[in-house]
């Protein structure tokens, strides 16, 4: 074994293969964990389905949605809010996993991750990719259930929506990591719900088209325009019908890069530990 130690010590630098193995390992583990946490899966599905089955059904008669791109015919309200609900699934998932990266019980597991010799920015990016992969499972399960509820985008749409979902997942995960790293006060998920998830979801085009918002409140419409969630929803809406919304794509891609860079810079593993130290007195 001593010879093995010697040969190991002589090896230096990391091959592309090391990076690939690391990424697949992290995604594989996240997938396994996800399969073991049924409650998390179910609650991730119940949330959008409640919106779809109850809220949308109730509002169908109240809210009329005119023909706006990408739709070519009148669509039911259920169909209109589906892209918004898809991105909401991803928003919850991204916030949950990012928050746990900073504060949660997962801290023990974060330690094992962070003592990997690969660069920290790469490890954090792998974590975001893994959480995005989990959100894809959730979204496609939701879409499968919605299909039985007569929400039937063109078959090709299920494929073309995939790149949009990946981009959304990365952007929202990185945003979650950035927020929980920078804002001290958001110590728990309730805080994130109130100050991040709800405002982002409601001040967007998820529930109502922006032109309708514009008519009632130009200020709110402006807020919606500035909300990256709006553009993630529009990107998804178009992609689900095999179309590209270029401005939404550019904004979501740009935000993804900015949030990811900022999140990696702001991420400090000492924080979660210090927060616990205050309570537990562990040194």
């Amino acid at each position, binding site marked *: 074994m001593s010879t093995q130690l010697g040969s190991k*010590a002589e090896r230096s630098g990391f091959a592309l293969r090391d990076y690939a193995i*690391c990424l697949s*390992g*992290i995604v594989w*583990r996240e997938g396994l964990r996800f399969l073991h946490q049924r409650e998390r899966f179910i609650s991730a599905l119940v949330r959008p389905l409640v919106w779809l089955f109850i809220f949308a059904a109730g509002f169908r008669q109240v809210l009329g949605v005119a023909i706006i791109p990408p739709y070519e015919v009148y669509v039911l309200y259920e169909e209109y809010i589906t892209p918004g609900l898809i991105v909401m699934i991803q928003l919850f998932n991204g916030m949950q996993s990012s928050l746990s990266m900073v504060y949660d019980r997962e801290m*023990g597991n974060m330690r094992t991750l962070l003592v990997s010799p690969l660069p920290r920015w790469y490890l954090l990016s792998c974590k975001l990719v893994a959480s995005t992969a989990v959100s894809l499972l959730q979204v496609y399960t939701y879409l499968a259930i919605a299909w039985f509820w007569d929400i039937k985008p063109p078959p090709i749409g299920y494929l073309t929506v995939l790149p949009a979902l990946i981009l959304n997942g990365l952007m929202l995960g990185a945003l979650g990591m950035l927020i929980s790293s920078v804002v001290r006060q958001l110590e728990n998920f309730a805080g994130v719900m109130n100050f991040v998830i709800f405002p982002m979801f409601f001040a967007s085009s998820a529930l109502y088209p922006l032109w309708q918002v514009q008519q009632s409140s130009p200020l709110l419409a402006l807020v919606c325009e500035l909300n990256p969630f709006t553009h993630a929803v529009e990107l998804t809406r178009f992609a689900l019908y095999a179309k590209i919304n270029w401005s939404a794509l550019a904004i979501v891609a740009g935000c993804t890069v900015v949030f990811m860079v900022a999140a990696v810079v702001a991420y400090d593993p*000492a924080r979660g530990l210090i927060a616990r130290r205050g309570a537990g007195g562990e040194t």
Partner: protein
Amino acid sequence: MHGVTPGEVAALKVENVSHAYGSRRALEQVSFTLAASTFTVLLGLNGAGKSTLFSLITRLYGTQAGRVAIFDHDVSRASGEALRRLGVVFQPRTLDLDLSVLQNLRYHAALHGIGPAQARQRARALLERVGLADRARDKVRNLSGGQMRRVEIARALLHRPPLLVLDEPTVGLDIKARADILAHAHRLVAEDGVCVLWATHLVDEIDERDLVIVLHHGRLLAHGTVAQVVAANGGTDIRAAFTALTRERADASEAS
């Protein structure tokens, strides 16, 4: 005696390391060097700064002042090269309870760029050594505390690091499990030439042949063989020496 002979690369070198949490100083000017193939006990009461030191060695925290090097690779500047030579067992349990033993090991191997086939092979061999080969497919949740620790040690050795650091690895274990793990760590030094740094607050985990570092209130008070530390601080054994060292300090800090 406890230093590194000239020309030999130190397994671990800690130079003038200080660390503070806000205004609270956790480490003050700590310096020591560990040679390859040695077993060193880092002895300190709770709050001595052991875990902070471990967080710096493992690059969990950035180094505020001073320098940490593993086989001459600076942990801050060449962290990849430093960390690939380091195996860690953290104080809190860091295994995935819902995954099997083998899945946990495979995940760790992937983090070090070791593919599934090779990982399985190494994991089997290491589990054999810690006496858990027959539990490879069991969920970690179903293992005892001592078995989990052994899995964590096996995991820390998957990438064959020449330096292994363990932060209070025997917390919460019964006497038998403690003795087993301690013996296993000593074997790693004797048989594989691994350098082991073992943090504890329990004096009875120290063997006569070990090297000892005493850390108290963030300061390094003693470093040497058991005999040297006992001789320098009076008393008949390491327990008396440790009590004398930490009491004097407590008196001094109360007086000041």
